[in-house]
């Protein structure tokens, strides 16, 4: 029972971490390796707004999300747009930006005391004999709400449909008057916002540390690769696969192996089926 409940929670955590990454990749084919950095930035900004500038919790979360989105959009608009279409340069550039942000934060911001965000609701509840605190339940709830909102966004709104069009066929979208660069900026902003949502939901469970950035990046990449880059259903399913695999290894093998599971699953997936479980890339593009 414990495995089931914590498996679900862990899986939804992974979904939250990966959503932004897979959104950006799906729309603009940009592997945003600064995703983890944006995640930490969102948590740190929330803390700054709350403790230094004295806003209340809700307001600082809102401000942090908006500013993270703006940072993401600016990153694309001013830097990444110039290396668009060169996959390796995209990876190196976005990874370098992420590295600069994370290590800059480690040097200038996140040091000395511990940084924590309070949980939304204190306390815990017993579900089927397992005690779960409210924050972890909220993670699941928020994860499901975010998935729902995203689904509504891409199927019902004009902007969302434009993004979907870009993801499916960039040329056709261009002929229909969808500005591909503008959409990429929008997707970066949304993706960064999603990283921010994940951050404010997940950081109350622990401290705000720089290492979280690297972990989130590894997890997001793992989920997206196993699920197939750019595929949403794949990402969710892969999150559950990896989530449960992790909980099982923690229970039966020990906590050390948690990250190993993610890394091994990436390598196995890439070697056996590079497009992932649900990827739609052409076979020839990725292997000989």
């Amino acid at each position, binding site marked *: 029972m414990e495995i089931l409940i914590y498996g679900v929670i862990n899986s939804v955590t992974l979904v939250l971490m990966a959503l932004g990454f897979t959104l950006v990749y799906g729309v603009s084919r940009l592997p945003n390796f600064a995703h983890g950095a944006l995640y930490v930035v969102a948590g740190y900004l929330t803390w700054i707004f709350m403790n230094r500038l004295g806003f209340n919790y809700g307001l600082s979360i809102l401000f942090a999300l908006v500013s993270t989105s703006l940072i993401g959009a600016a990153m694309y608009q001013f830097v990444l747009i110039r290396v668009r279409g060169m996959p390796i340069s995209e990876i190196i550039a976005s990874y370098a930006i992420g590295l600069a942000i994370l290590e800059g934060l480690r040097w200038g911001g996140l040091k000395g005391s511990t940084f924590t965000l309070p949980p939304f609701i204190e306390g815990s509840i017993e579900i089927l004999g397992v005690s779960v605190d409210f924050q972890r339940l909220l993670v699941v709830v928020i994860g499901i709400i975010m998935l729902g909102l995203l689904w509504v966004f891409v199927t019902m709104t004009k902007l969302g449909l434009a993004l979907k069009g870009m993801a499916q066929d960039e040329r056709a979208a261009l002929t229909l008057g969808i500005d591909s660069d503008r959409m990429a900026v929008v997707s970066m902003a949304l993706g960064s916002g999603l990283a921010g949502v994940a951050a404010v939901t997940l950081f109350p469970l622990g401290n705000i540390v720089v290492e979280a950035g690297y972990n989130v990046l590894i997890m997001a990449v793992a989920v997206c690769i196993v699920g197939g880059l750019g595929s949403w259903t794949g990402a969710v399913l892969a999150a559950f696969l990896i989530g449960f695999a992790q909980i099982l290894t923690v229970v039966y093998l020990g906590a*050390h192996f948690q990250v190993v599971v993610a890394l091994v699953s990436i390598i196995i997936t890439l070697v056996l089926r590079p497009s992932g479980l649900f990827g739609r890339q052409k076979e020839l593009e990725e292997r000989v």
Partner: protein
Amino acid sequence: MTVDNKDRRLERIDRGIKVRSDGVYAISSWLEMSYLVAPRLIFILGLLAAPVLLLPVPYWQKVLSIICMYSLLAISFDFLANYVGLVSLGGGFYIGIGAYAAALLNMKFGLPPIVTIPAATVIGAIICTVVFLPCLPLRGVYFAIVSLMFPLLAARIIEALDIFGGTDGIVGVDGFSSPWIEQYVLILAVLIAVFFLRRMITEDVGLVFSGVKDNDQAVKASGINITRYKALGIFIASSLGCFGGAVLSHIYMWAGLSQFALDFSIIPIAATVIGGGGTLIGPVIGCLILVPVSELLRDFGTLRIAVYAIILTLFIVYKSEGIMVFASRKYEQFERWVSI
């Protein structure tokens, strides 16, 4: 006075001396010969003289060793990325494997550095090649991501299984008998690597390599086994990295988890981008710039990683050709405005 760029364009023409020294006229006069030889000679003699020049400052001698070690990695990255078409982000993996192999050979069997370094180079390169073998059919981004995962995975596995000294690493590896040996071994390795690879890429093997990079289907259609050539490329590149790692473990007298660290994956890439990819000498120049900068910033802790990440971003976005390509263009060609 500003001239409208619509009516004119910049034309680049090879310098006369470049054209003459390309052919048999290179030996027609001292000028042509020195035009050809001077840049190479400055590079070789400069590197060979560096330890002597740095004699008054022992600390920077140490930095020179580190520069050479990173140069080896950067050369291997450049070779793999620009001549074989495999972008390997896992430089730390080669270093780590080489370091652990050398340390284990030294500690378990009591072999001296003169045996462990070549042995670790070969054994490490074989291990790396075998580990990368299943990933060789991948290309582009997919190979890059897998190779990025390997050093992380290796470090986590050593940590989780608590083998090879676990998080403490292997302590008490033999050091070099004198700092001169340490530096000249590395410098000679860099020189040999640069000139060996430069020679190799113009041979038949190099031609197949660039074929694999540009159009692997065509190479396959010619009845050549791509995977074998990619494995050979990985072997050459990882032997450079493993050599660096083996020497590193003897310099620090220690092999540990930090030798799988991201530093070893990032600095070579940054150096290659800054120095100019595809030149093989460019990465060395990049290391000569980057590593001292990062040493000067050592007091600022992790800020230096941020600094070179920013330098890397600026270069890849605004000056992606790199210093070496830029310099050799200036050296070989002159520019003039022509009206259209």
